[in-house]
């Protein structure tokens, strides 16, 4: 069993949410606010959706799509926004541009729009992620597998989602460690390709474990 002197340190997280003074009460305001909202807020309402909706496969994929469909009663816009896969964009500016383009195209064909009351508006938020080292680390693939199966799901989010989208670590922390520290480039590539869109953190954990188990089996472990 290959071991590394650079252990993988599992870190969980707690999300502290902050309300911004940025609000939209109709489609046109959503377009304007999407252009000016901080990048962290775009992240919160797209990638962050997966941290907050842990137990269930989500119907809309991001907060903008849910709001358009449920509150604005604009199912077409809801569907167009729902299909945007935030994980397909290496940078948040690209994701923002995609959302802006979709809403811009949509409002051009709209006539009069209905303004919602304040309580049903879209209220932009962002979050401060407080990292929590879980006191669990791995120096071998077996140790990695055992730790992965038990750590809090927020660690999956931090290492797979937050690392990729907010901290610019392309394939995520797990893939990077498997490649660079453990010398498992094929497994790293498979882990880096896991599609976290429209699923739950527990299912992502399950897919990770399946991939690692297959390699351990090949190794005769």
């Amino acid at each position: 069993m290959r071991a590394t002197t650079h252990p993988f340190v599992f870190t969980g997280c707690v999300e502290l949410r902050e309300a911004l003074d940025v609000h939209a009460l109709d489609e046109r305001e959503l377009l304007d606010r999407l252009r000016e909202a901080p990048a962290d807020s775009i992240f919160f309402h797209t990638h962050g959706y997966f941290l907050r909706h842990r137990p269930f496969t989500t119907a809309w994929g991001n907060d903008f799509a849910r709001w358009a469909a449920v509150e604005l009663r604009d199912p077409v816009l809801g569907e167009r926004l729902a299909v945007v896969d935030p994980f397909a964009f290496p940078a948040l500016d690209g994701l923002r541009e995609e959302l802006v383009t979709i809403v811009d195209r949509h409002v051009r064909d709209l006539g009069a729009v209905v303004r919602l009351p304040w309580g049903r508006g879209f209220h932009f938020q962002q979050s401060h992620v407080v990292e929590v080292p879980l006191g669990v680390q791995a120096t071998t693939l077996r140790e990695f597998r055992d730790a992965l199966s038990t750590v809090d799901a927020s660690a999956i989010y931090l290492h797979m989602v937050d690392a990729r989208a907010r901290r610019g670590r392309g394939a995520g922390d797990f893939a990077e460690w498997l490649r660079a520290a453990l010398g498992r480039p094929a497994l790293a590539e498979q882990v880096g390709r896991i599609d976290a869109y429209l699923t739950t953190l527990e299912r992502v954990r399950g897919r990770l474990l399946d991939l690692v188990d297959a390699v351990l089996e090949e190794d005769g472990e």
Partner: protein
Amino acid sequence: MSRIGEYSQVAPPGTVDIVERLAARVRGRRFLHVSGGRLGGGSAATLRAAIPILDDLGIDTRWEITGGDVAYYATARALQAALEGGERVLTEAGLEHYLAMNRVNVRRLDLDADLVLVHDVQPVSLVEARAGGRWIWRCHFDCSGAQHGAWSFLRPLVERFDAAIFSLPQYAHRLGVPAYVVAPSIDPLSDKHRDLGPREMQAALASLRVAPDKPLLLQVGPFTPGYDPLGVVNAYRIVKTHHDVRLVLAGTAEGDHESREILANLREAAQQDPDIVVLELPADAYVQINALQRAAAIVLQKSVQEGFDLGPAEAMWKGKPVIGGATAGNAQQILHDVTGYIVRSVEGAAFRIRHLLNNREQIPRMGAAGREHARRAFLLTRHLLDYLALMVHLAP
């Protein structure tokens, strides 16, 4: 076992471990809560549960209470009502007296701490005397529609804090300080939410004279227009023509004329139909409410007035599907079509009740989803994580 350890069986896996690890990072810090009273449910109940746990985790946590004379309490109540959007007459003399009484409170109370969380309106002006530490205003109500005069008085005080906390982003008013979002929570080990044995359930229901011999529809909440109990009766009547069910309305009556009239109408409806049960319960009837929620087939929270009432989370924790009115607080708790339904009318409520009664296999499925949703999002353990994250973020 430590106090937090007792929550291992009910919190999501790993949560207690994260609570302990976060607490270790702020161990020894002094965390002070200041509010207008220790009694009652809501935020006071949360503090009664959270403070001993935080203290046990090594955080020096205290709770101070402001007090004053009759005029002080009257002004604080009127100010809060005006901040919630109600029309109230606030006089300069009354507000000046409120400020003066809180200056007396400053001399009386020990406000020295690393993080001071000031709850709601009554103690808010203590911030005038802040010395060290970080100060946060915790607003438990919706102040987005505050009366202009009341907000003009409060805003300069709130902007002397380092930050504010609201239960929902849309409850916040425009401020010059960061506004964090922390939802309220329920304590799963309290009498209102702990597991009940069959005998305890039977005894509680028998004491209320509620027979569990047919599916129970339940709404728990004050007999006030905001909870639309008469709308619930009308929804039940639509359902009753197709299903043999019993409606239980459990709550407290307010002293105002409108509430008394609603209660009179409910009693009249109950006299005409033995399957309508109206229970006027004291505020501390925790075990009885727990038993009713556990005995119910479907729970309603047909609120028509904004407010983050935790009724849906309480029922979901007991594995019940919830049909709730379209308020932001309900929408935050009920995942439509997953843990229950959001409705906008009496007919909508009746339709969803009939749908569930005609497809009964969905009731336990939605209930189970609701319990998991409540476990993740509305238990005290999540609230502790929020408090600790706040300490790490603001007072490391």
